């Protein structure tokens, strides 16, 4: 039977709601979206090709610039893959500092994602509140690492700079402020009746379709799949007794709430790390050796995996990156957007999966 399609509407590549260029093609009957498709290809830079034949000190910066929002986790996964190949030990203080910086980065990324969602459903007040509180997290990142976005903090065998005592005091104070304000914003988001109208039961991703689309990260955890969190397999997080948060509704509201709860969890994780910090060395040195490995880590958007092959002088021979957004975009366009009642919900549903186009295309 031939499918009757009224209009095919493209959204993007330059659209007020999208931070990055992507084109979503929607086939609609009236306002009802029958099917959607995401067209990529505006950001392909060929980073993996450039990375080949270079030593770690150059690839580290290229890996960081795969994605500017979640740069710390790209840095961390690449360096930890290198450490796994060459058996480089990491001192305990260095490992804890990595977790602190990684969780700060996750916080700012989640706040930014929730800001974009609030902006897309035209709740600008909450969006601006979130952007304001994000600056506190960015300040702490800058205070510890020296840069706001591309921190370049993690090196083989440890980290670059130590956390000073006065910075630790400042970090705790900022965490208190973020926790106090974030509780209020979560209450606003949960209690707002207009937000509920725009987000509850919109863009539902059931557990079965999440499995079918291989959704990862908060998108999967909002559909009731806590085991997708790769932090469960990380040794430092295991020491911190990490338990992933999850919800079972699978709609836009659940995805945003999972991010809010992960922000609170990150605050808790950073506090526990600060309690566990003992004075000691922060880096141990170590030169990469030849080998081949696959290493996975949990980016703010989901599971990030690096396939890495080095030669005996520590140069990268082959590298292949799988970023979380490609699966989430797939899940978003094929399952969530199908059956969205109104075209106005298409950008907000797309943003609720937090797609990162720079990651996806590299």
């Amino acid at each position: 039977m031939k499918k009757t399609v009224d209009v095919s509407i493209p959204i993007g590549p330059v659209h007020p709601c999208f931070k990055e260029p992507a084109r979503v093609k929607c086939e609609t009957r009236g306002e009802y979206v029958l099917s959607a498709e995401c067209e990529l290809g505006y950001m392909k830079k060929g980073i993996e090709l450039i990375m080949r034949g270079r030593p770690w000190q150059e690839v580290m910066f290229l890996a960081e610039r795969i994605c500017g929002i979640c740069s710390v986790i790209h840095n961390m996964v690449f360096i930890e893959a290198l450490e796994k190949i060459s058996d480089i030990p990491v001192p305990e203080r260095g490992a804890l500092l990595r977790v602190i910086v990684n969780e700060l980065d996750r916080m700012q990324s989640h706040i930014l994602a929730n800001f974009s969602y609030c902006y897309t459903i035209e709740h600008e007040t909450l969006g601006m509140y979130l952007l304001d509180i994000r600056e506190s997290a960015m300040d702490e990142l800058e205070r510890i690492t020296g840069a706001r976005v591309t921190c370049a903090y993690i090196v083989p065998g440890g980290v670059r700079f130590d956390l000073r005592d006065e910075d630790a005091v400042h970090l705790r104070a900022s965490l208190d402020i973020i926790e106090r304000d974030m509780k209020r914003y979560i209450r606003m988001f949960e209690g707002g009746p207009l937000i509920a109208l725009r987000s509850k039961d919109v863009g539902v991703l059931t557990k079965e379709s999440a499995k079918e689309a291989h959704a990862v990260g908060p998108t999967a955890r909002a559909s009731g799949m806590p085991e997708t969190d790769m932090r469960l397999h990380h040794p430092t997080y295991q020491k911190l007794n990490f338990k992933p948060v999850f919800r079972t509704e699978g709609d836009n509201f659940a995805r945003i709430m999972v991010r809010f709860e992960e922000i609170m969890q990150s605050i808790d994780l950073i506090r526990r790390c600060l309690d566990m910090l003992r004075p000691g060395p922060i880096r141990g040195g170590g030169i990469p050796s030849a080998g081949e490995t696959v290493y996975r880590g949990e980016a703010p958007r989901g599971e990030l995996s690096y396939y890495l092959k080095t030669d005996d002088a520590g140069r990268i021979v082959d590298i292949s990156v799988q970023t979380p957004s490609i699966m989430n975009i797939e899940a978003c366009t094929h399952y969530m957007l199908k059956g969205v009642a109104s075209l106005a919900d298409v950008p907000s549903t797309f943003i609720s999966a937090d797609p990162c186009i720079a990651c996806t295309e590299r």
Partner: protein
Amino acid sequence: MSILQSFKNLVRSRSIHVAYVDVGSCNGCDIEVLACLAPRYDIEQYGIYVHNNPREADILLVIGAYTPGWEDKLQGLWEKIPDPKVAIAIGNCPISGCVFNRPHSYVNPPVSKHIPIAAQVPGCPPRPTEILQAVLSLAPEVFKDYERRKR
């Protein structure tokens, strides 16, 4: 004439609409432009509105190292912006290609080969304050004596 003109210049410099286009960056500069919206920096107090709509923009912030996907699109986007218009290159990517400008990469910097660039903000990524200062320094120049220049 001149009093009216200077009054116009003054008023128009406080009403600037900004669009940004990402032609293949790492996203770092995008979120720094977004951070300019934050109440900490508050770009809107200077009368600058980030709408991301080329049809009503005066200033175009170009971010990224010009990937092949934008070959024919960036020029079209630039022509859609009504006169007067300026473009600012944000970050290293549109200036030099940053770390991506290596053999075998797909990027084709600098962006000034494709559209005229009025100002540059170096840094990878630049801080929001630097972006803000660049936009603020260019804001009075966009509409200055526009009627006289048009004639």
